[in-house]
């Protein structure tokens, strides 16, 4: 709790540029992040569409794209993964919703460092431009995958796209790291210092907890990736040998000596595994918030939920080696990484149990955000339970680097996290734009997306069991893959339908901004502070006063209360937490 006056209060901006482009307002910056992620997700999704089409119709010549060669396919793989992980799954939940909602939910007028906030968005934007530029340079985008394993990523001659395209790729990631570090500092400081009177830590909404812990993970993880990326740039351009031993590419001896390809993997996954929690924790927070709101019940086990978030965050830093069981790393360390990875299943299971406990004996209202939150739980269970397979080194022998792995992580950190973003969009849209999104379109979008994503990713598990390796641009060369083509066709059809259905969302989003029904200040009858202020919130969030918090975040259906929810700033009564 801050006892001093916030130092960052700034006057409402005049003029278009200060208001909408170089804005200091966390709400505008949040929307900037959101629309950057929206642009990115449609690019990333389009790339996945091209990949799926190429896999089953390898000879097809597509409009705009033309003939897809193996190196084009791998460039799509790389750019799809990089765009989705960094500019969608990190950008939308944290930069977008975290920025917009966190200060309001803790009763603050803005983020702690508004200029830093603006800077972190525009730095992210520069990173995005650098990444997209890789498509347009000689040789095109790199083909080393979003994980960029050295020496493939470190050698200019290792393939098309490994020249300037790969330099732009790693530069973009380094810029993104810098932006994320600035953002993380801001989130942590804001949460610790700018909470309104009465907003004790254990009264913070679980969304705030999730964004806060995500920021801590970001602070610890992105610095490592930044350093790793700089070393890679040096290896690529200045002839150092951090990651490259003596290698011979196509008969040419390269000038490197003594480097370790595994060093890159250690550094990358030391970032990479916390990164998957950076992508999913905000979704967990939103799901908790939305489930409780629409179940009209307090969240089951609030404290357990907070400790589970902390547990996941802490253990998330001790499991990176489970990506490397087949890498040549010591098999003894595999044993330890495996044990830690299994342990991370425990807090994940606690969260699932508590979500189910929240629904038990509830009175559920099925608005679109709630459908997506329930979808999140279903996908989290499905994607989570393939984790204990991959966490066992002995099962990685058949499963590692097969389609089983993309099946697992797409369900849990891809689609589940996207469902968290959808839940958040449908839930907070009224607050952000003052209008409601269309419920019928929302439902149609939900049903197609839920069934469609299961139809895409569940069969990928079967492909993995059958031994289909990841990142193959064609299934023509390995005989046993021929039998799997029908199932691959099914996945492509499901992908085409599911991706098309996202246009419904896009239409609903923009149509509702101008034509949606007017929203009241608290359309969901929710309890947290963002619903106590005007819609959309004024520049300083609460119109000149600071709220005082008297209640926990999820006081629904309190016996004896006049209505079925008590807002966090309602006058104190003895009966609630």
């Amino acid at each position, binding site marked *: 709790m801050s006892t001093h006056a916030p130092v960052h209060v700034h006057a409402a901006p005049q003029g278009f540029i200060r208001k909408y482009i170089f804005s200091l307002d966390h709400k505008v910056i949040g929307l900037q992040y959101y629309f950057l992620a929206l642009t990115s997700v449609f690019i990333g999704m389009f790339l996945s569409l091209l990949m799926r089409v190429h896999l089953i119709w390898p000879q097809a010549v597509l409009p705009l794209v033309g003939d897809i060669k193996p190196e084009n396919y791998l460039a799509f793989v790389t750019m799809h993964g990089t765009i989705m992980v960094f500019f969608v799954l990190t950008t939308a939940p944290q930069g977008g919703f975290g920025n917009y909602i966190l200060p309001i939910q803790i009763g603050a007028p803005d983020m702690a460092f508004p200029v830093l906030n603006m800077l972190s968005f525009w730095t992210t934007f520069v990173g995005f431009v650098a990444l997209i530029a890789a498509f347009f340079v000689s040789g095109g985008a790199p083909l080393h995958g979003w994980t960029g394993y050295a020496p493939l990523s470190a050698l200019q001659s290792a393939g098309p796209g490994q020249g300037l395209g790969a330099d732009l790729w790693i530069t973009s990631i380094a810029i993104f790291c810098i932006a994320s570090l600035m953002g993380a500092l801001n989130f942590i400081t804001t949460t610790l210092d700018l909470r309104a009177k009465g907003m004790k830590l254990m009264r913070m909404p679980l969304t705030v907890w999730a964004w806060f812990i995500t920021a801590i993970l970001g602070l610890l993880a992105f610095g490592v990736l930044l350093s790793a990326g700089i070393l890679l740039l040096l290896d690529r351009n200045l002839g150092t040998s951090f990651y490259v031993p003596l290698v011979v590419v196509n008969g040419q001896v390269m000038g490197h000596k003594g480097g370790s390809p595994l060093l890159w993997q250690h550094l990358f996954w030391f970032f990479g595994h916390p990164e998957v929690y950076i992508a999913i924790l905000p979704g967990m927070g939103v799901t908790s918030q939305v489930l409780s709101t629409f179940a009209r019940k307090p969240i089951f086990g609030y404290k357990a939920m907070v400790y589970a978030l902390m547990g996941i965050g802490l253990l998330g830093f001790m499991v990176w080696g489970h990506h490397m069981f087949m890498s040549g790393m010591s098999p003894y360390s595999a044993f330890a990484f495996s044990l830690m990875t299994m342990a991370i299943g425990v807090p994940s299971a*606690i969260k699932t149990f508590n979500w189910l406990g929240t629904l038990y004996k509830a009175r559920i209202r099925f608005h679109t955000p709630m459908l997506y939150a329930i979808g999140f739980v279903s996908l989290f269970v499905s994607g989570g339970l393939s984790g204990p397979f991959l966490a066992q080194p002995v099962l990685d022998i058949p499963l590692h680097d097969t389609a089983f792995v993309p099946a697992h992580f797409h369900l849990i950190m891809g689609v589940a996290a996207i469902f968290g973003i959808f839940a958040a969009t449908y839930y907070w849209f009224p607050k952000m734009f003052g209008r409601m999104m269309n419920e019928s379109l929302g439902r149609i979008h939900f049903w197609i997306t839920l069934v469609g994503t299961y139809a895409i990713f569940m069969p990928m598990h079967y492909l993995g069991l059958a031994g289909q390796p990841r990142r193959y641009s064609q299934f023509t060369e390995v*005989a046993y893959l021929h039998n799997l083509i029908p199932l691959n066709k099914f996945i492509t059809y499901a992908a085409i339908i599911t991706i098309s259905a996202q246009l419904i969302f896009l239409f609903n989003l923009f149509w509702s901004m101008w034509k949606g029904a007017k929203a009241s200040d608290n359309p969901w009858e929710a309890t947290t502070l963002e619903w106590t202020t005007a819609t959309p919130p004024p520049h300083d969030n609460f119109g000149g006063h600071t709220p005082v918090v008297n209640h926990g975040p999820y006081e629904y259906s309190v016996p004896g209360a006049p209505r079925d929810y008590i807002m966090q700033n309602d006058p104190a009564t003895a009966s609630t937490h």
Partner: protein
Amino acid sequence: MGLALLLVIWLITFASTYFFIAKTWWFPVGYSAAAAAIDHQFTVTFILMGIVFVLAQGALGLFAWRYRDRGDAHPVQYSHGNITLEVIWTALTAVLFIGLNLAGSPIWAAERFEPAHPGSVPVEVTGMQFAWYFRYPGADGKYGATNPKLIDPSSGNEAAIGLDTSDPAAKDDVVTGTMYLPVNREVDLTLRAVDVIHSFFVPNMRFKQDAVPGLAIRMHFTPIAVGDYEIACAELCGLGHYKMHGMVKVVSQDDYDKWLAAREAAK
């Protein structure tokens, strides 16, 4: 809406589980000594995770339907949770996950902690963009020296891995593009890569190991049935990754000896 959720979630659960149980798409038959144990560990994991999967999805669908808002004023349970329940399910999941891990670890230890037994067949595997080469040390049991400067991929075999023929130990080394193995003999593998990381994946042998430039990784497995088994590269290695395949031919000891003798004679 509650009923629709129940039906769709249950249907997804049923369909997903059905194709696992029916084994419509499944592991290729395992023909190595370790395959049975690995498959068994998979089955145990699948049964346990399958039970949790069905129960969790079942409860989610059921609760969505059972506790929907019906417009009446049925009481909502005002509860902030239950410590006893939290402790119980935390303990149960911990036992389940850690137990599963411990159950699988002896197989891992046998595969990876122990070196190959004496008397096993030494073969060196070399991966390069986009081919596999296999080297047999010959009668002296020693691999001859290789020299990166001598690597000439376009010439194939000995030249492709840069075998230094001036080294006496290299004289009887045999290098091929197809891996021949005698059945029921343990293979003592040394995995290398000359350019980028590749991964030696033989689904029928339940074998996978990355081949990393700069490292010589020792591994072993034992084929238990005569036959031809495909190798697929399992680590993204460049534009030809999808076509970096090869073949393991497991033959009888006699056939193996004859093949090796013929290769030696042809040198």
